């Protein structure tokens, strides 16, 4: 696989340098320059929100740093968790004296390092944790706490971020993030792999006429493979699986995110979104604030994910609130 890069070892650092050059509202910090944070600094008294994870998922995670969203992100190597120092530094940079929520995907390395960072700062900064667990293909519903976090985590960023911006305290912001995660379900499909810079091989192999449903964002195996099918059929199955997880008592308004894994173009996302609208309409659901585009990618992987965020009044209000992050602005 061809990559426009200089060397595998400089890949992440140069990406981050480019990111903050292109988006002056973001700053690059930390002893190893692996923390992206808000250039204007933390507002005293505001609850901080940090996220982070491996590189290779732009605009996740760093693209959502901004007012009404995240305050800082710690960044690991491609598809590896952020190291402990960057987690400590991110939490410190997000500290406005009102505590810091750690809000990130449920991956082993990320969890261990954010946990250690929190322990390290014990007595100094109060921290809480909410893990993104929206990927319904990564564990059965009974084990939903073990699921991985994928694209749908951006709803939790948005809602918790808006709540923190409004001045809610750490417990309330944490509870909002928890609710946003619980309300959001995602399923993905992959058409072709990506390749980790420096690696000799793509992350997986798949035939030229096959796709895989439920694949993980690093190319981990999914639910099944099949020959290519018409897009509408694929969407019908994805929406069916997502609606099977509709929370009891949900009232009928949802947001939808149709996300490119990287190489899949906007044209195809829109074909998927068109059908998703029809199916959700049939199910009596009303869509508000849809998102269609590359929101959480795996570099040049081809494929897409669909997320549904089952809204209630409070979450919907926070979804519509202003935010100033480079890749999700709301005014």
């Amino acid at each position, binding site marked *: 696989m061809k990559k426009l890069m200089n060397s595998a070892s400089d890949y992440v650092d140069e990406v981050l340098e480019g990111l903050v050059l292109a988006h002056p509202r973001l700053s690059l910090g930390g002893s190893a320059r692996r923390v992206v944070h808000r250039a204007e600094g933390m507002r005293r008294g505001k609850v901080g929100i940090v996220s982070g994870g491996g590189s290779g998922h732009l605009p996740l995670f760093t693209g959502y740093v901004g007012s009404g969203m995240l305050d800082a992100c710690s960044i690991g190597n491609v598809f*590896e968790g952020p190291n402990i120092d960057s987690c400590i530094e991110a939490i410190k940079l997000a500290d406005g004296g009102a505590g810091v929520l750690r809000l990130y995907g449920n991956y*082993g390395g990320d969890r*261990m390092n954010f946990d250690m960072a929190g322990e390290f700062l014990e007595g100094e900064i109060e921290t809480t944790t909410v893990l993104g667990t929206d990927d319904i293909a990564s564990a059965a519903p009974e084990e939903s706490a073990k699921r991985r976090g994928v694209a749908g985590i951006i709803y939790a960023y948005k809602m918790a971020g808006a709540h923190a911006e409004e001045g809610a305290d750490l417990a309330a912001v944490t509870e909002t993030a928890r609710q946003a995660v619980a309300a959001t379900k995602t399923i993905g499909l992959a058409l072709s792999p990506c390749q980790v810079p420096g690696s000799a091989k793509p992350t997986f192999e798949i035939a030229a006429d096959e796709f895989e449903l439920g694949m993980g964002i690093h190319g981990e195996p999914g639910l099944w493979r099949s020959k290519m099918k018409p897009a509408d059929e694929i969407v019908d199955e994805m929406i069916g699986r997502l609606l099977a997880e509709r929370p009891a008592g949900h009232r009928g308004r949802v947001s939808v995110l149709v996300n490119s894994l990287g190489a899949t173009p906007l044209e195809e996302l829109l074909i998927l979104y068109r059908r998703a609208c029809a199916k959700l309409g049939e199910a009596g659901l009303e869509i508000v604030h849809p998102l269609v585009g590359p929101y959480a990618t795996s570099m040049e992987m081809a494929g897409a994910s669909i997320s549904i965020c089952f809204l209630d009044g409070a979450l919907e209000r926070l979804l519509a609130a202003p935010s100033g992050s480079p890749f999700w602005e709301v005014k």
Partner: protein
Amino acid sequence: MADIRIETLENAIRIANSRMAALEAELNAADSKLGDGDTGVMLARVLGKFGETDIGAGTDLGAAFQALARAAAAATGSSLGTLFATALLTIGKATKGRETARWSELSGLLEAALDAMIRRGGASLGDKTVLDALDAVVKATAGLADAGEIAAEASKAGNAALAAFLDKPCKIGRARMFAEKSVGIDDPGMLGFVRLVDALADRD
């Protein structure tokens, strides 16, 4: 044989690094079956950093272990790398301020590391991870004092664990979802650990 000292560590790092040249691809391939295929590249990077870390200047064996722990933690935030750092930190604390450790202490030091890794990672023995091979080594080397014998028994026990778990299902991470698929496949972390123990025991 002599005690465990900083040179012992330096020597082990050299051996592990030269073994890694061939092992990297094997571990990536093992991890790519159900994981994200990066175990080898990550471990090679961490061991490479060890090679660049100056641990020979002082006489504090514990400090040397801690320096390696810091190097591992700086080089990666992956699961295995972070657990590796946790293990080194634990052993470093236990040997802090000492110039040497006796080979008879090794089993106990590894057991402390194992406990720390279980606490940090949240996995259990039997889940088919690096922990199970380490546990087997801890048990097989308990009570032994001779470096050669320890190496031989560790290698034997590690390989036995690998064989015993081959047909068991994985119980952690995303591979858990594909428990049936994990049957017949080595866990990459366990495989890496056992292969490196083999190399240190000169039993490639």
